[in-house]
């Protein structure tokens, strides 16, 4: 993952743990979610969404997935998609 230098040392450690996990298993849901979180924290929201789309195909009930997608769509100025994701989040929450 490029741009790690923009992260704090602890966030960088988290990012490296995530990268290592993805090298072991590119379909690891935990690591995909973590990767999306790191990308979002770097302001790379569109890439984060692509990662979450991948996660949604592999593990559509992954905890926090739809609420995270909703936030990213809202930040990217797409309230309609954000609402659809929130609806999915409400179905998955409990």
């Amino acid at each position, binding site marked *: 993952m490029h741009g790690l230098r923009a*992260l*704090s*040392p*602890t*966030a*960088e*450690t*988290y*990012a490296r*743990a*995530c990268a290592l*996990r993805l090298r072991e298993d590119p379909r690891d*849901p*935990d*690591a995909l*979610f*973590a990767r999306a*979180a*790191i990308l*979002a*924290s770097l302001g790379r929201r569109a890439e984060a969404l692509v990662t979450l789309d991948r996660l949604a195909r592999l593990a559509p009930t*992954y*905890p*926090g997935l739809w*609420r*995270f997608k909703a*936030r990213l769509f809202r930040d990217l100025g797409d309230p309609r998609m954000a609402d659809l994701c929130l609806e999915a989040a409400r179905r998955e*929450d*409990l």
Partner: protein
Amino acid sequence: MIDALKAKVVVVGPPGVGKTSLIRRYTTNAFDDAYRATLGAVVSKSVVDVRMNGYVVRVTLSVWDTTGEPGVPEAVRALHLHGAQGVLAVADATDARTVPALVPFVATVGEVAGDVPVHILLNKGDLEPATDAVGAGRHEGLVRGARVYVTSAKAGDNVARVFHDLARRIAERMVVPIDRPLEDVDFLLAVKCNTPRTIAEAAAEAGLAEVVAEARLERLRRQGYVRLASLDLDRGGRPVVRYTATTKPFTEIAARSS
């Protein structure tokens, strides 16, 4: 009579304190020494029957095991805590440094989920708990109005108890909302607490079941009429709290009586 409730419980705390092991012990009654860091979150379901003053409330818990890794974006922690109705904050009973490490987690709980019941767990209690860790845990509990337990995911000590107690406190809050008007018995409980009282003592003196007394005392605490005077641990590592009255006047009761 059985009522059914659903509740989200989030387990937080620094890495390596045994959050995943506690949940595994509770949901599958198993323990595994191997450690693999959680990077995101894992949800398990569990059903708890809570007896509340003559009826049973069936609480289906969604237990969220969340990452404790440092460096996780705050926004992710907030996502995990969204909608939480109860929180288990886990530290390591053998390592006092893990107790202050809980503070940022619990602060985020307050910001995202509000005033929800928090239990502080000092895990790995099968090893020799460090006196300073237990002291620090009790202090945090007292400051935050949280219950403190010494648990062992390995031996199973207090694990089921912790989840059951949290489910009960969540159910109490759902069944008896904080804004329900106070009653004379609440006034009586607060008066009894002019001298610090355990839940059992206050319950006996007010002629209430302990679960009812605890629910009312907790509501009084959240409204500022009583506070925790002390938080001790019994020999089994379970919390013994004492409530004491504050100086806040009972305006609601007084207005009704006049």
